[in-house]
């Protein structure tokens, strides 16, 4: 160790240093013990600091980021799945509502049609009845008229005979004559 300091101070006599037997500092064995000691201390310290303090800190930061990123991705995926489920639910509900709406419309249409049909049937029935009544009345009137015509004809026949012959014709003979004439 003694020549360590001295060689420094005597650089002006560099050429003469060959005489020291330690002209080339990296091969100066007198410095080896100190260098080894401090290398052991420094590298040992470095290893302990790295393995116990520094590297776990960096690893924690990187791990936190990776965790955060994968967490965010998982959350994004969950949200997307949720969105898709909501969309599917919405579409199902829309389809159901549409089905229901068309069902309601069909039902209303059916009800209205049935009502219309029944009303039409009632009216037709009523009209038919009225027509039938009218026809019956007409028939009755016709028969009554025919009957009236017969009696009028009988009276007219009695009057005609009376005025032409002056004789009296009984109502029964007149009726018989009219009936024969009507059969004609």
């Amino acid at each position, binding site marked *: 160790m003694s020549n360590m300091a001295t060689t420094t101070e005597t650089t002006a006599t*560099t050429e003469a240093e060959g005489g020291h037997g330690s002209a*080339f500092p990296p091969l100066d064995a007198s410095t080896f013990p*100190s260098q080894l000691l401090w290398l052991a201390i*420094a590298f040992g310290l*470095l290893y302990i600091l790295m393995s116990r303090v520094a590297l776990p800190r960096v690893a*924690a*930061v*990187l791990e936190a980021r990776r965790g*955060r990123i994968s967490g965010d991705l998982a959350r994004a995926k969950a949200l997307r799945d949720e969105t898709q489920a909501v969309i599917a639910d919405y579409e199902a509900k829309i389809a159901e509502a549409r089905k229901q709406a068309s069902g309601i419309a069909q039902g209303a249409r059916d009800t209205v049609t049935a009502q219309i049909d029944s009303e039409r049937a009632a009216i037709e029935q009523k009209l038919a009845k009225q027509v039938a009544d009218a026809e019956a009345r007409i028939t009755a009137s016709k028969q009554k008229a025919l009957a009236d015509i017969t009696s009028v004809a009988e009276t007219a026949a009695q009057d005609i005979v009376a005025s032409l012959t002056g004789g009296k014709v009984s109502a029964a003979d007149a009726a018989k004559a009219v009936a024969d004439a009507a059969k004609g």
Partner: protein
Amino acid sequence: MAAQTIDPIHQFQVHEYFSLPDMGGMSFAFTNSALFMLAAVFLITFTLVAGTARRALVPGRLQSVTELWYEFIEKMVHQVLGHEGMKFFPLVFSLFSFVLMANFLGMMPYFFTVTSHVIITATLAVMVILIVLAVGIYKHGLHFFKLFVPSGVPIFILPFISLIEVISFLSRPVSLGLRLFGNMLAGHIVLKVFSGFVALMVASGGIGYFGAIFPLGMAVALTALEFLVAFLQAFVFAILTCVYLNDALHPGH
């Protein structure tokens, strides 16, 4: 004192700041080397702790550096050693960071380059190899030595192959340590030599000002190159550590 400006070895001097008590017949001292080792440890720890202080979800500048730094080594260890090798992550991270910070600190003018001393780089390399041996034998017992006996090799050339494998294994700490040491040492010497030329040229005055342009350009270019080398050597050290540890975890590959 012109000689001092171009003495490229001077920068590697270890200065003694104060002495420590002798132990086991060896003298110890607190030196500039020790100072810069502790400075590297402090800077690494400070950057990482300060960078994660805010724990922001969207990182700021310092936090980005911290995370980039962490993930760079994490990916490397994970790729080479697999999931079970992640328990060596603090070791590889410490090695990479220590070498990187020591190299970068050394690039500052007047700063001492810790990794330009072979005792430091060789010790780190030997430590790596001893860990490889310890892990390999702890995990696989004597099967670990199958590393030196590749399967599918004809029996009559097996001894030669094994010998080559043993030599290659033993040369690992040497190459690992010397590569870093040599790169840092040579780089700093060359840088110093070119910078010294600039100083000498300018000191001579007159036409020397023009003569200084080329070495100045070289010094600038070499500084850029040395920053690249500083990072590259730290990276090489770390990835070779991973590769060697992989042998310990999965021998016989």
